[in-house]
């Protein structure tokens, strides 16, 4: 018995000492994301951080989840007060869900405010509430239009001359006449990326600044009428698989059956990863406008990385986040690994980085994506983000777009019903 006791005592001592020495060990930062591509970026930045901060070593423990599941788990963990990670990626459309009640994310003002002059402010404003910033975006997400240059040329269309949506429609007719089996454009019946920028150009949005749903508006009707006309006349196809992230759509785009799509800048890596046959054929361009003088782009989507109130070492986690998302080296890495348009705009003009011939995005595209970006640099507006937005997006994705593109119901009726639905379903 005595022997056993002595052994136990010895073990306690050893474990106790282990804990005492643990301070020299790197601090573990638990990180959740819904996009495993993001992990490569953070891992690279963690290595860089450890090289620069020998006294504040970190060990990143990353876990990727499916999109919905990650946000659900996070919501449940924050609600329960236990089980949440230190650092987490929250998608733009989901962010408002985490801005309710006592906010369970930590304000990032002390790292964001010193950098405000160097970054696109809108990309932190969209994750703020009552003057506190709770998330930092990966990218600006500028909306652009992508053309399949080869297809345009085969129909004798010069895509650079398309300045307005009217000209775009005329080009569509020319294209269709030359390629009856193919489509000029693609629209989504279950997603909003293809039409939100068109709406923003007119000054419209999904919600207004006061947080009201703005589905039933003349701007929305105008955009949807235009797209519906394209679909009904056979100029546009409703994306197979219902949206621009479906494998069926990738296949159709990849085989060269669609000439152009409106998507944000971050769609770049979908091209390189899922549509390899289009290498050397894809160019980006500023969006056409309805009337001359309209702003030609809008910041779309995004992922706000946030620090939760369950973080073990909030200061260190915040410092690391700032290093990843706000620093110059972070911004450069974002472009190099993920192909994003970094929120730190000075990088856009660094030719050695953006035109690096070894970069896989530069190699893939027929024109340099940053050339487009620099053209629209001062025209990128922001959308409103508030607690109403998740509901409005739900309504758009689940009812409105499918009805507009697949049925003959009048757009006026669809929109007024949807407006009422969204208001009735608001949290």
């Amino acid at each position: 018995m005595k022997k056993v006791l002595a052994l136990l005592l010895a073990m306690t001592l050893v474990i106790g000492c282990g804990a005492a020495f643990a301070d020299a060990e790197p601090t573990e930062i638990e990180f959740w994301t819904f996009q495993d591509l993001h992990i490569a970026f953070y891992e690279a930045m963690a290595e860089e951080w450890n090289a620069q901060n020998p006294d504040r070593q970190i060990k990143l423990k990353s876990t990727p989840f499916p999109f919905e599941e990650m946000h659900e788990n996070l919501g449940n963990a924050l609600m329960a007060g236990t089980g949440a990670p230190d650092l987490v990626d929250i998608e733009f459309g989901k962010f408002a869900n985490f801005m309710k009640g006592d906010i369970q994310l930590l304000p990032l003002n002390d790292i964001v405010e010193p950098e405000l002059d160097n970054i696109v402010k809108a990309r932190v404003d969209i994750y703020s509430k009552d003057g506190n910033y709770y998330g930092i975006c990966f990218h600006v997400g500028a909306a652009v239009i992508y053309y399949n240059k080869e297809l345009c040329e085969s129909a004798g269309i010069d895509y650079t001359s398309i300045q307005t949506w009217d000209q775009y429609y005329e080009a569509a007719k020319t294209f269709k006449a030359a390629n009856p089996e193919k489509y000029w454009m693609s629209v989504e019946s279950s997603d909003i990326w293809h039409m939100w920028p068109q709406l923003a150009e007119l000054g419209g949005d999904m919600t207004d600044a006061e947080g009201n749903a703005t589905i039933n508006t003349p701007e929305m009707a105008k955009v949807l009428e235009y797209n519906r006309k394209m679909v009904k006349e056979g100029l546009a196809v409703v994306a197979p698989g219902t949206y621009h992230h479906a494998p069926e759509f990738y296949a159709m785009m990849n085989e060269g059956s669609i000439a152009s799509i409106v998507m944000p800048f971050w769609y770049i890596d979908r091209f390189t990863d899922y549509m390899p046959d289009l290498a050397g054929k894809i160019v980006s361009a500023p969006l056409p406008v309805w009337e001359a003088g309209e702003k030609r782009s809008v910041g779309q989507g995004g992922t706000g990385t946030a620090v939760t109130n369950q973080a073990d070492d909030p200061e260190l986690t915040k410092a690391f986040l700032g290093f990843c998302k706000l620093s110059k080296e972070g911004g450069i890495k974002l472009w190099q690994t993920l192909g994003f348009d970094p929120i730190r705009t000075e990088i856009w003009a660094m030719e050695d980085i953006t035109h690096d011939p070894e970069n896989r995005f530069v190699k893939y595209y027929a024109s340099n994506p940053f050339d487009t970006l620099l053209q629209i640099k001062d025209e990128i507006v922001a959308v409103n983000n508030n607690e109403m937005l998740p509901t409005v997006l739900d309504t758009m994705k689940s009812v409105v777009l499918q009805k507009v593109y697949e049925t003959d119901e009048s757009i006026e009726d669809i929109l007024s019903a949807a407006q009422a639905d969204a208001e009735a379903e608001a949290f």
Partner: protein
Amino acid sequence: MRRLKSLLYSQRLAPYVFIAPFVIVFLVFFLYPIASTIIMSFQRVVPGQTSFIGIDNYRKMWNNSFLTALKNSAVYMVCTCVILIPVPMVLAVMLNSKKMPAKGFFRSMLFLPALVCVVVAGITFRLIFGERPGALMNSLLAAFGAEPVKWLGGPVRWTTMFALVILCCWRWMGVNTMYYLSALQSIPEDLYESAELDGAGAWQRFRHISVPLVRPTTIYVLTISIYGGLAMFVESRMLFANTEVGNQALTIVGYLYRVGIRKMNYGLGSAIGIFLLVLTLAVNLIQLILTGFFRKE
């Protein structure tokens, strides 16, 4: 020590000890969640600021999405019940017949789909019902000279429902057939023999011996089918790969998941859950009364 021994061998205590695992599991994993769901259905649940809001959640529930969900679930439930009771019954009679060749093979083949994970099945069916001309269903149509159909999220709703019902039938046909098979095997052979001697044909034997004698199984299958139909969720989610196009595959549980989990409106989600519980209980109660389950023999 003796006290402890008498406690361990106590006949009075033993039954409670034996049922304790069930009681504990029931209390922790059923009663507590149900009770807290009922409470949450009257609350606005947000971190740190949860408050009672009366019956607001129940009032808010009656919106168009919910009504669509209710309709979809009801149609799905009726379709699956109408198909998944008579057809398995006939299949079971065939499998039970002495004249049937390769019985064992057909039995295991029929049961196989039930063992396939719903997620895998959903993805496979999504590919089968793909909208491009090369997808399986559309190439079948093409063989008959028909145009390709946009099955999921297309202009009409019934194609989606068709895909969902087919998926359900494929999955559960074998299970229901097994239920009926075991019921048929418990019917004494002499009943059929004496009926045959009296000149009853195959149809009459089926109609007047098999069908009435498997009634308890029919009631059981109907009860679980009603519950399964109203609570269907995973199939529609997998078939639609997380998109919600046109609310065509939105079910009651799908809507609960959308508002309760995805939009984190736990209060409203709870109210929908309670409604589903009451609805399922009510429909099954009516069904049990109509089928004479409570009638004294």
